[in-house]
Every structure is written in structure tokens, then in C-alpha cells.
């Protein structure tokens, strides 16, 4: 069952700005920037749309590498780039509105980059017992 054709293009990180600029000039709108961590590699998808045709640029990066911001081309990209930085710890350089890790404030830094963010079960039991004692 296919609703629409979706095009994926793998590009090098160095060519990102050039490719995005091309997209911008041919009238595409930025749909989203999304990151995912698969193994040690971060995949960042830049999705564009023009008249219901959906296209994707994909770059791959690893821990510690910096990714250039596209906010000079698409002003609104700051929200996605800050989000990627806050959730995955991927450093994005040159964002027009850089929140420096304060857009999504979490107790665990870069929560989507660590192996396990789970609740601690025994602690919950203790507090539950305490509550019954208090009663």
C-alpha cells in the first residue's frame, strides 16, 4: 500500500549546504529535520516538500563530529537543530537562534544518545511503602 513516492538521497556532509540551497532555490519547503542513532552512526534526515512531492536528503555523522546549520537558508530550521542537539548531543554549528542545550531541558543530557533511560523500580516500591506508613 503506497500513498506517495518518497525519494531518499544520501549525500556527504560537506555537500549538505549546497544541496539544501538548491532545494530552497527550486521552491521546496522544509518539512522537518530528524535524527536517529543506529549503532554508532547518527543519521540526519532533511525532508523537503514541493507540491506534495516529498524528498529527503540524508547525511551520516558520528559522535563528536559537527554538523553545519542550514538556518541561513531556512530560517525556521533552528527548532529542529536545537532539538537534535538536545536529544542526541549532535553539535550543530552556526544556528541563528542557538539555545545551547536549553530548548528541551532534561535531567539526563542527550537522552536519546544513552543506552538506557529507564525508571528505577526498587525506589518506587520504597516510596510506596513510605506512603502506607504515613497513612
Amino acid at each position, binding site marked *: 500500500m503506497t500513498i506517495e513516492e518518497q525519494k531518499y538521497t544520501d549525500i556527504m556532509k560537506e555537500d549538505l549546504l549546497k544541496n539544501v540551497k538548491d532545494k530552497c532555490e527550486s521552491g521546496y519547503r522544509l518539512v522537518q529535520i530528524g535524527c536517529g542513532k543506529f549503532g554508532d552512526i547518527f543519521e540526519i534526515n532533511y525532508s523537503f516538500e514541493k507540491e506534495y512531492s516529498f524528498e529527503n536528503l540524508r547525511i551520516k555523522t558520528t559522535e563528536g563530529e559537527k554538523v553545519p546549520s542550514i538556518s541561513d537558508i531556512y530560517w525556521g530550521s533552528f527548532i529542529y537543530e536545537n532539538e537534535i542537539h538536545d536529544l542526541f548531543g549532535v553539535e550543530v554549528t552556526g544556528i541563528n537562534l542557538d539555545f545551547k542545550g536549553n530548548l528541551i531541558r532534561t535531567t539526563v543530557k542527550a537522552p536519546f544518545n544513552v543506552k538506557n533511560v529507564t525508571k528505577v523500580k526498587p525506589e518506587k516500591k520504597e516510596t*510506596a511503602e513510605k*506512603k*502506607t506508613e504515613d*497513612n
Partner: protein
Amino acid sequence: MKLFSMTKTIFKTLGRGPSTIRYPKEPAKRYEGTRGQVEIKIEDCIFCGLCSMHCPSDAITVDKPVKIWTIDRFRCISCNSCVEACPKNCLCLNNVYHEPVLNGPLTESFTGSAEPAEVSSEN
């Protein structure tokens, strides 16, 4: 008369009576399909643990060796997932919401054994 654009609505509403229910006096609205809370026929339960595996909010715990089935009513989101997962069809979702309580946790345990199901509620 742009200033009095609400007039029609006001007159319509006047003839209609209140739209709200005087809740504790009148019972709340309830439909046949409303998702209320999970009920278990413990005598049919085989303690396979499928319901707790499929519970999105970890509300159900099943202890197979001692045959105890426990549900945390505060965690339960009445999603019907356990009912669908149950191979013996011993779970069902009724259409009654739980009575309001003042303090929790609100866990209910059911013990499966030869004698009739025993219900204990700890508060």
C-alpha cells in the same frame, strides 16, 4: 447588527435548558462501548503473563509460581490491550469508571486457586 451576533444563540439556548449534568445527583453519561476498567475471571486465568507483557503502562504484574494477578488501577489506562492479548478470554473491560479515591496506590490482587476468587485491596 454586528454587536448582537450572539442573540440568536442566546434565544436558542434559553429554550433548551442546561447542557450540563448535575453529576453526583444524576449518573454520568455512559455508553455500552465506554472503556471503564479491567475485570478478571481469575478461575480461568492460566497466569501466562501475556497481559502484563502487552500492557503499555506496566500496570499488570503476574506472578506465575504463586498464582497472583495484580493490577495497579492508577497506572491502568483502560486501553483494552490486555483483553486482546488474553488467550483464555478471562479479561474483560467493563464500562464503569473507578470510584474516586483520596489516596493511593490502588492495587488489586487476585489469587487463583481451587477456592472461589479472593479479592484483596490494599490502600
